[in-house]
């Protein structure tokens, strides 16, 4: 088979069509990672979602601050504790001109569960719905098994596709444009895998029409090259400005720089459960009989020994927000009474002495080195700060693929990770990171070291079935406070996402790190 292709490629001909030149109002944008599929229900992966957002829409969506806003559903109400009724926007057309109705919505909610070969399906967000009832073409009722306040947040992840266009086609087919009929601000033109997606403006869009008639999303994973593409004018905007070049970008008069606190928290997770932890030793490297991390005083000492402001100023070039919360201030469930502790190595030393470690101990901090902004550098900095209070810390960094494989097996004593609250509330990190491990209920999916606090679990469980927003918010804040006081996880900062554009182009930065061509417009 390889041979035949080789032959084909080597047979050269002389003629080829000449392609049309670029038009005005064209906008080129460089993204940092390519999507793996065009099917909006195929794979719950950031680059895929980023592209889907241009073409498809959900019933409800997140605004730039991760608050839920109406999109294809104009309004909704709770009929009873279990049933939600959605009124759909009338007169919304798919890109082929056909009208979007409740039929398409029901189809789109069923479809994620039927996708085959996906490493991360979207039915995470549809499985709470046990019944769908179409009342009329513009009204649909959804029923859940138990009171489920997260339904709206979940629905922000489900794109509405045309039933007519996607019936009977596979996820593969979407790459050629089949089924790529959404209701969104842009129409799909072409997908060149790993290279670009071309789009054109949907002139019949029901909402605010984008400023650009033609958009090209380029995929340039290499940081330096992406910035060079902006400097050379090949693209008019980029996402994820490389940190080493921040100062240069800010100083450049031809560029504009945008940033926003992201929903992604960078945190440490200590081993609080095992008497003997694999990477906790005395200062000579001999294993310890009792794991000091089981003592809450030690965990608090480690937290206040981290100079979060110094990490922001020196390592992150000012682009991080020190925190001990799990979500940024704008998000649901943020606890304003939890303030980052004052950096206090003396107090930390005292706490350690109280816990019975006046001379400290030895520790290895494990970290990924290609996943989060400056991940290994942050770990190195923390290791130095800990060594100052007597905890002799080594750092072991690994690519995420290697790191996660070992981490998921619970092989570390303390590690660094990040978590983005995709559903826009703190229940997302609480459920995944710190809830007691319970596979049957889907709790503690990344709680690799099996931290467990029954108090917190009870409060969280109550919050997850409380539909009243105010009460739920209180419960979630309470749950967060319990975990943080207990040192179950040690948050360091919220990441800050960055964008840069040519002068004269404005961007509305988003908490959820996404980059939308329609978020850019000329000044």
């Amino acid at each position, binding site marked *: *088979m*390889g041979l035949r*292709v*080789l032959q084909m*490629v080597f*047979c050269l001909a002389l003629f*080829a*069509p*000449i*392609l049309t030149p670029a038009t005005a109002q064209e906008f080129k944008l460089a993204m940092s990672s*390519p999507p*793996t*599929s065009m099917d909006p229900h*195929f*794979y*719950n*992966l950031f680059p895929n979602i980023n592209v889907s957002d241009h073409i498809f829409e959900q019933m409800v969506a997140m605004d730039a601050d991760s608050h839920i806003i109406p999109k294809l559903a104009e309004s909704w109400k709770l009929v009873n504790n279990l049933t939600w009724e959605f009124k759909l926007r009338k007169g919304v057309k798919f890109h082929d001109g056909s009208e979007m109705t409740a039929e398409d919505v029901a189809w789109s909610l069923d479809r994620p569960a039927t996708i*085959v*070969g*996906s*490493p*991360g*399906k979207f*039915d*995470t967000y549809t499985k709470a719905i046990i019944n769908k009832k179409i009342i009329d073409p513009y009204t649909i009722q959804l029923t859940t098994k138990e009171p489920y306040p997260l339904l709206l947040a979940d629905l922000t992840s489900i794109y509405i596709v045309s039933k007519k266009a996607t019936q009977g086609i596979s996820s*593969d087919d979407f790459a050629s444009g089949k089924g790529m009929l959404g209701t969104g601000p842009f129409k799909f033109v072409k997908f*060149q*895998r*790993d*290279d*670009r997606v071309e789009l054109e403006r949907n002139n019949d869009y029901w909402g605010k029409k984008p400023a650009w008639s033609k958009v090209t999303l*380029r*995929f*340039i*994973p*290499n940081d*330096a*090259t992406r910035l*060079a*593409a902006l400097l*050379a*004018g*090949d693209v008019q905007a980029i996402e994820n400005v490389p940190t080493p070049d921040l100062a240069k970008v800010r100083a450049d008069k031809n560029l504009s720089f945008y940033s926003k606190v992201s929903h992604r928290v960078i945190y440490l997770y200590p081993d609080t459960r095992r008497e003997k932890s694999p990477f906790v030793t005395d200062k000579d490297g001999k294993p310890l009989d009792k794991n000091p991390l089981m003592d809450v005083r030690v965990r608090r000492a480690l937290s206040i020994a981290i100079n979060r402001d110094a990490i922001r100023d020196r390592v992150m070039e000012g682009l991080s927000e020190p925190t001990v919360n799990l979500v940024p201030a704008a998000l649901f469930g943020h606890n304003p009474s939890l303030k980052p502790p004052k950096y206090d190595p003396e107090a930390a030393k005292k706490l350690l002495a109280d816990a019975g470690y006046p001379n400290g101990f030895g520790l290895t901090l494990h970290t990924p080195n*290609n996943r989060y902004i400056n991940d290994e550098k942050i770990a190195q900095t923390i290791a130095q700060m800990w060594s100052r209070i007597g905890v002799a810390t080594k750092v072991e960094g690994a*690519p995420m*693929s290697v790191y*996660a*494989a*070992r981490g*998921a097996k619970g092989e570390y004593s303390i590690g660094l990770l990040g978590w983005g609250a*995709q*559903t826009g509330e703190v229940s*997302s990190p609480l459920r*995944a990171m710190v809830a007691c491990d319970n*596979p049957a209920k*889907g*709790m*503690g*999916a*990344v709680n690799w070291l099996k931290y467990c606090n029954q108090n917190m679990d009870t409060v969280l469980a109550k919050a997850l079935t409380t539909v009243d927003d105010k009460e739920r918010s209180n419960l979630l804040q309470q749950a967060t406070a319990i975990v943080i006081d207990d040192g179950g996880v040690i948050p360091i900062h919220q990441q800050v996402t960055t964008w840069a554009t040519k002068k004269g182009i404005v961007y509305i930065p988003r908490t959820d790190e996404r980059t939308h061509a329609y978020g850019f417009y000329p000044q």
Partner: protein
Amino acid sequence: MLAFIIRRLLQSVAVLLVMSLLVFIGVYAIGNPVDVLISPDADQIERAKVIVAFGLDKPLWLQYFIFLKNAVTGDMGRSFAYSTPALALILERMPATLELSSAAILLSIVLGLPLGLIAGLRPNGVIGKSIMAVSILGFSLPTFWVGLMLIMVFAVQLGWLPTSGRGETALLFGVPVSFLNWDGLKHLLMPAFNLALFNIALVIRLTRSGAQEALMQDYVKFARAKGLRNSRIIGVHVLKNILIPIVTVIALQFGSIIAFSIVTETVFAWPGMGKLIIDSIRVLDRPVIVAYLLLIVTIFILINLVVDLLYSVLDPRVRLAESKG
């Protein structure tokens, strides 16, 4: 000759088998793809489902056995991340890489040969010396850095060439290629030069030493004595004789250029196989990694076979039947 080819092909199958086993174990040792691939919001039950769906719950030997069974029928498995057949995914990107590699080889011949000849003919002149000095840079500068420098100078500072990507492509027998239109060519130039740099230096060195050696030979002296024009001596007699080793090296280099275009493709966001393999390793997309490496091994085997066959055609003294490993 036929017996030779058959034996070589059988050997190749054995090489492929060993290679596949090594790669399989290697990728398995790195970790479980599901830990990196799956969306973070998925819970444990969904993870378990994915693990079963991808067959990762089975013991390694069974996974390998299933892989072999499918591989015999030409099925290298489906990519985890893209859910398309791994081989198709690689072949889809192959034209881009082959085009880049061919352009690089072409550049190294077009630039390397004449420069090497000049340096060989005037080894003590200023031009000859400077060519050699520059060729040392070609060997020693890291491709990654040179690529970024090229982008900074020719795209950002001078604005002559686009920074990255593949540009417009045109279909040639159903295969998209860049070199048939101006925009595509502009995109091709810098990455091809970047990839060619090492080989240009290599060809310069080979040509120079070959030429210097040839100039001492009796047949050159004799030609001179006969009063042949210098251009004819160099262009025909010398060049013909020094070309054989150069052709061999270039042919072998072609294989490694394809295999090692990874760095250049990453720097220039060139959508070829090299970039695919990097992305696949990052998420442990095992079927793609295995299929890619086996394909590269196959290419090397084929190239070596062709080189051996060419030898026997060029030089009757080489006997294939004796093939001494």
